[in-house]
């Protein structure tokens, strides 16, 4: 039995080594060809940890790409002298937001937390992409380990710890596209402007907005929001109340043409409003973008995100909502 056990151990050790080597190689290639929003997590957390520990922030923004492409802390600071930071991230689910908040307060406790609510993130079962990239950038703390055990399943924990190739392999299609077809996703990712905000300047045409996309197909199940995300919202509300942190919910503007495509938008609006009421949090729903002065073909760069011009217009209208 002993020689066999030695052989099995050699196999497993070799596999571990190769897995780390391959993950490293994929990481290097990924950095070259593709940001997909996830590399911004690294910039974001690095900058966040450079802020002096223990100082307090006026506002901490949390949420999906609608948050990190929608709230510009630098603009807010120059306009209203508000010190804020945007820790939104691609597809950030409420469960991830809950753990991002717990880790963030250890470094810079905020006076106000503004959490962006995007219905899609409530349906996301996978935590690896949206949560994993945040987890990897966080400084070691008990809150970080709690995040690992509470938010991820066994597969995701393996991918984040001993089998990084499971995480890195997501970049494979982008790497292949880059080297086989010269299609570089880096071109589409946007520019990291600081304090967590990422800017895009392009405009989407009405014709592009009218063409079929995922929103056309979308049909929500009866219980479309996952209980773990609902629970996370409740935990966030309790956590903030306990620490005397003001909490507000907001949904970012979407192009009118996109909103019209979403058959269940009324159900979504009702659900999010009821959720906010249930946890006693003020909720501003700008999804329909009515009266905001935003034009689909001028102020959005794709079918669901504001461009830099749109962000300027929207953020200026949030002064009252963001004031303590």
């Amino acid at each position, binding site marked *: *039995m002993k*020689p*066999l056990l030695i*052989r*099995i151990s050699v*196999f497993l050790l*070799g*596999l571990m080594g*190769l*897995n780390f080597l*391959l993950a490293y190689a994929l990481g290097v290639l990924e950095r070259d060809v593709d940001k997909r929003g996830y590399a911004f997590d690294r910039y974001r957390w690095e900058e966040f940890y450079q802020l002096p520990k223990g100082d307090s922030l006026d506002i901490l923004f949390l949420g999906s790409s609608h948050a990190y492409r929608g709230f510009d802390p630098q603009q807010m600071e120059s306009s209203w002298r508000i010190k804020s930071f945007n820790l939104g991230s691609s597809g950030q689910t409420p469960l991830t937001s809950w753990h991002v908040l717990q880790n963030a307060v250890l470094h810079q406790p905020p006076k106000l937390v503004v959490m962006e609510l995007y219905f899609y993130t409530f349906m996301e079962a*996978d935590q*690896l992409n949206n949560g994993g990239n945040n987890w990897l950038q966080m400084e070691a703390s008990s809150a970080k380990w709690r995040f690992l055990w509470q938010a991820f*399943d*066994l*597969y995701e924990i*393996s991918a984040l710890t001993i*089998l990084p*190739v*499971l995480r890195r*392999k997501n970049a*494979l299609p982008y790497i292949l596209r880059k080297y*086989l*077809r010269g299609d570089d996703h880096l071109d589409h990712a946007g520019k990291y402007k600081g304090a967590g905000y990422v800017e895009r300047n392009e405009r989407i045409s009405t014709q592009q907005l009218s063409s079929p996309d995922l929103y056309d197909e979308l049909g929500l199940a009866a219980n479309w929001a996952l209980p773990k995300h609902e629970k996370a919202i409740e935990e966030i509300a309790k956590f903030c109340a306990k620490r005397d942190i003001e909490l507000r919910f907001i949904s970012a503007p979407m192009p009118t043409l996109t909103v019209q495509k979403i058959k269940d938008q009324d159900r979504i609006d009702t659900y999010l409003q009821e959720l906010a009421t249930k946890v006693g949090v003020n909720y501003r729903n700008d999804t329909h973008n009515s009266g905001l002065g935003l034009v689909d073909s001028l102020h959005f760069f794709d079918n669901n995100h504001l461009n830099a011009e749109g962000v300027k217009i929207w953020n200026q209208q949030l002064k009252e909502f963001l004031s303590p």
Partner: protein
Amino acid sequence: MLFNSVDFAIFLPLVLLLYWSGLLRNVRDRNGFLVVVSYLFYGWWDWRFLLLIVFSSALDFSVGKQIAKAEDQWARKRWLWLSISTNVGLLGFFKYYNFFIDSFLDAFQLLGLTFSPHSLQLILPVGISFYTFQTMSYTIDVYRRKTEATDDALAFFAYVSFFPQLVAGPIERATSFLPQFYQLHTFRDDRFRVGLQLILWGLFKKMVIADNCAYWVDQIFADPGEHSSLLLVLGILLFAFQIYGDFSGYSDIAIGTGRLLGFELRKNFAYPYFSRDVAEFWRRWHISLSTWFRDYVYIPLGGSRVSQGKQIRNVFMIFLLSGFWHGANWTFLAWGFLHALFFLPLILLGRNRKYLEVAGKDRWLPTLGEGLRMLLTFGLVGLAWVLFRAESVGEAMEFYQGLLAFSMDGWKVQHTFPLLGVSCLLVIEWFSRNTEIPFLFRHKMVAVRWSSYWGMALAILLFSPAEPSVFIYFQF
């Protein structure tokens, strides 16, 4: 619990550690342990499923003893029919109830009569078709005096619930498998090593080949009308390898896991896509089910030693039953019917046992004739797979119509990726066709062996989907 999940990757080493630790010193302890871990494995899906398997095991254990005890033939037969009718009844209820109700409603609707449906929306217990057949084989073999009725309840319960093959076979026979639960297995390096190799190869076939083919197959079969004939052919090809990689991969993992515990499970696949006619295909595909039907249905009906009319009846019966065993859908019946049509000329001409040896025996490559016959057989089997995969017969017809359009557009460079995987599988299998495990694992050069271990393991990590996908045969 799925073989391709992290749960199983933790479960199996723990089971092995306890099993071989020396804490379980006798056969009884080992069997008790196997029953507990097998029920844990099975209950992982839904603990309620356990009630059914416990009932089925208890029934057939008692019936086996009653048959052995009964003195007259009539009493023996009564006990046997109790076992068969209960097992088939349970299977029929859970698997076919909704199908029959819905089919009757459809038929009445055609006559202009409408009834309110009373389908129960029953959940099909995983693996019920497999373990039901396994327990039935026991009572039938006891009845036929091919095996002794067992007095060892633990051994029998372990035999029925043995977790490596519980949910999708191979369907074992009491004659060869039950006696293995009377022995205290000793740890053997060589057996353990082959077990691990089979598991690695099975996972590769499932997670790299089958799951990646599935991605394209799902798209093509979801809307056959929207795809060119060329892409429909690709859909057939990829589904053929999806189902093969999925099911033979499962069987390899099951056989490998059995070996890790010291057990020998029967072979379920023998390189079926290298078959030169449909009869050979059926000797190499899902062997444990084909031989079950052969031994318990076909031969009792007279097999091929009856009049030509009865031969035809027997062939259709066996293939229709096999189709229906797969599921409560007309598509499976049509699939069985088509295979019966392919098989019939061979049996009527007495050519059904023409190819008993492996193709290209003692040669590197097949002869041109062999190659063409393999291609033709694969083509026929592939055409039948359309029925197997389609949601309805109408959808399959739409697929066949699309094939006849002979359109060639829509090919993308991405379509070549799964074909690369399939080619890789075919090459490895061709050079391994005389052995149980891939030739790479038996290569005399250490570097080749170890590179293939690590290469396959890395391929599994790199190319498998993030969410473990369910094995296709679990639904049967």
